[in-house]
């Protein structure tokens, strides 16, 4: 009996030693998922997600406190890429996507103050001081950063109208 007790104790000690050494030798830094997530996000730091910039949103998503669908300008594409990176399943059809939106400047209200163009993260608003400004449709990401900077409420977000080449056949209704 004594032999059994001793051998088990010795075995435990040896295995413990092996584990202790192994944990030292095989120590691995966990990869920074946050940086990878940040690379997927648009990088415009528009703040629509409610976090301080895209880096903040990436940290929140990595920590699990924000859903991968939290980036409105990114839409479905970014949400799917984020979910894919996190190994989460996401049904694209189930996502409520309001669709892309564009900033539109009402010409009769614009006073040419340039505040909106300074706030635009993608330089999508053109216009010299005291001139009516205009939005470049191709460059506008619909982040709405300009809306709150306009002193005359001349900037409004409007959904991008669906055109024939962008029309998508709806999913059949479930049987």
């Amino acid at each position, binding site marked *: 009996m004594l032999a059994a007790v001793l051998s088990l104790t010795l075995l*435990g000690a040896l*295995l*413990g030693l092996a*584990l*202790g050494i*192994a*944990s030292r030798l095989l120590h691995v830094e966990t990869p920074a998922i946050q940086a990878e997530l940040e690379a997927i996000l648009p990088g415009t730091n528009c703040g629509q997600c409610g976090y301080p910039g895209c880096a903040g949103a990436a940290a929140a998503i990595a920590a699990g406190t924000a859903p991968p669908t939290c980036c409105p300008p990114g839409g479905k594409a970014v949400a799917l890429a984020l979910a894919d990176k996190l190994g989460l399943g996401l049904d694209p059809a189930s996502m409520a996507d309001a669709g892309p939106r564009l900033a539109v400047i009402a010409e009769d209200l614009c006073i040419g103050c340039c505040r909106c163009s300074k706030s635009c993260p993608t330089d999508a608003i053109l216009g010299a001081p005291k001139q009516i400004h205009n939005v470049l449709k191709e460059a506008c990401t619909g982040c709405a950063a300009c809306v709150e900077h306009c002193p005359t409420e001349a900037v409004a977000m409007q959904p991008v109208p669906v055109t024939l080449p962008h029309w998508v056949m709806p999913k059949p209704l479930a049987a």
Partner: protein
Amino acid sequence: MSGNMTTLIRDGLWHNNVVFAQMLALCPTMAVTTSGTNGLGMGLATTAVLVVANVLVSLLRRVVSPQVRIPVFIVLIASLVTIVDMALNAWLHELYKVLGLFIALIVVNCAILGRAESFASRHPVGHAFIDGLAMGIGFTGALTLIGLIREFLGSGTLFAQASQLLGPAFAFLEMRIPGYAGALLMILPPGAFAALGFLLAGKQRLDARRAAQPDKAAVLA
């Protein structure tokens, strides 16, 4: 940290039930539940191990270092199970003959290591004790229920041999349905899966119904 004992008990018995919610420990669940008595016996033995293991792990939680955490837990649990095995064999021999093969399996019952890892190693002794007890009773209840259903449908009896487990005073539990020979399939492994499946479906339906009527649930609770 959930300091609420009621929550712990409710989790163990229903919301986080080892079998019906966590879907752990399915090997003993499937194997021993050929009768209500077997299920009860296995459940009680597991409960004993679970409670002591939880308490020991909780006591050791500050001492244990992460590298050897799992080996230490395993050694503790394996020793406990072996002690229970020998004790049953010596002093509850009839029950041992029924459960013998499965007692050793408690070592690899993932519910026990699971509770040690996820709960006992992070909570004080009192909580760990209550958690182990609640989880164990929940497990016992689940096993007994599955066992009773299988026994009833499969051999037409209820709590057969209960007096061997609990003593002659409990002989009144033993019942037999006259004129029913039983559907053997329920005693065989497929019956275990079928019974578990239908019980799971039933639980989900109850939970869904309760979630649909929050006011009523609040009143009932």
